[in-house]
């Protein structure tokens, strides 16, 4: 994909489909490396399925033969010299703590690094499409931390749906403000 944010959207949708009540999207940028984690408390996958999801001919969808979200994410990180790992615990294995943890690492200074793109837009799209499940978004760039937890919003909003126009507008502004008010770290990825 032209931007990692689209890939994140695709993979996070899998978490929602797996029945997650909370999906975490965690981005950590440090010393030219990016770690992307998508963590959910969904139904989890058996070892066999975990092995096969990186195979582009595997899919949980019935409408087409191949599912490309994870294979393309794997390609995107590996072409920078990074790697993708998936660990998962099924509901049968552990009825209390189950879910899937996808970790992808990237070398952001590699020429084939796919730009991150507009992650805020991906988060907004997820909330809009799934207002009844929770998302925790955390983007750490050196000292700068941008965070959104829909569980906190839900407490304040009570019965107002998260995907109502005003709430979406507010979330968009809240994320933008966090990016704008905290200076970007001037590391190896600082603007030069």
């Amino acid at each position, binding site marked *: 994909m*032209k931007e990692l944010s689209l890939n994140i959207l695709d993979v996070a949708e899998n978490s929602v489909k797996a029945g997650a009540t909370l999906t975490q999207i965690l981005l950590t940028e440090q010393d030219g490396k990016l770690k992307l984690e998508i963590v959910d408390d969904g139904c989890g996958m058996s070892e066999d399925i975990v092995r096969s999801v990186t*195979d*582009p*001919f595997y899919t949980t969808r019935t409408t087409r*033969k*191949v599912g*490309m979200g994870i*294979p*393309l994410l794997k*390609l995107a990180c590996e072409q920078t010299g990074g790697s993708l790992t998936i660990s998962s615990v099924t509901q049968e294995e552990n009825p209390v703590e189950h879910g899937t943890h996808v970790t992808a690492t990237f070398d952001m200074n590699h020429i084939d690094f796919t730009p991150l793109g507009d992650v805020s837009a991906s988060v907004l799209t997820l909330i809009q499409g799934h207002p009844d499940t929770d998302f925790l978004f955390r983007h750490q760039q050196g000292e700068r931390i941008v965070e959104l937890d829909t569980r906190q919003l839900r407490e304040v909003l009570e019965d107002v749906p998260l995907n109502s126009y005003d709430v979406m507008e507010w979330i968009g502004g809240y994320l933008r403000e966090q990016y704008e008010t905290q200076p970007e770290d001037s590391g190896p990825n600082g603007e030069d």
Partner: protein
Amino acid sequence: MLVKELLGHGFKPVTLPDGDRVIDGVYIGDLLSWVMGRAQMDNAWITIMNNVNVIAVASLADTSCVILAEGVELPEDIAKTAEEKEINVLTSSQPIYETAVLLAGLIS
């Protein structure tokens, strides 16, 4: 023009499970998600990418063949997958542009 008719014109077969497929147009691209949404059915697809996802995208987009340009080779295990999924893969030692020009002359 049929895929098998490319042989002997500077194109070498890697896998040819369905050589009788008709080539209708050409698509060129390496960003797989982009190709997935844009390559048309029966296009010959020219690329330099040679991982397993290429085979999946060719299957999804239903292209008539994949042409690996610039002398790029297909790893053996991926050739096996291509054979299983009935994807035609050929190679060209020429750069992408020259490969496309050669192809244009043949299919017009």
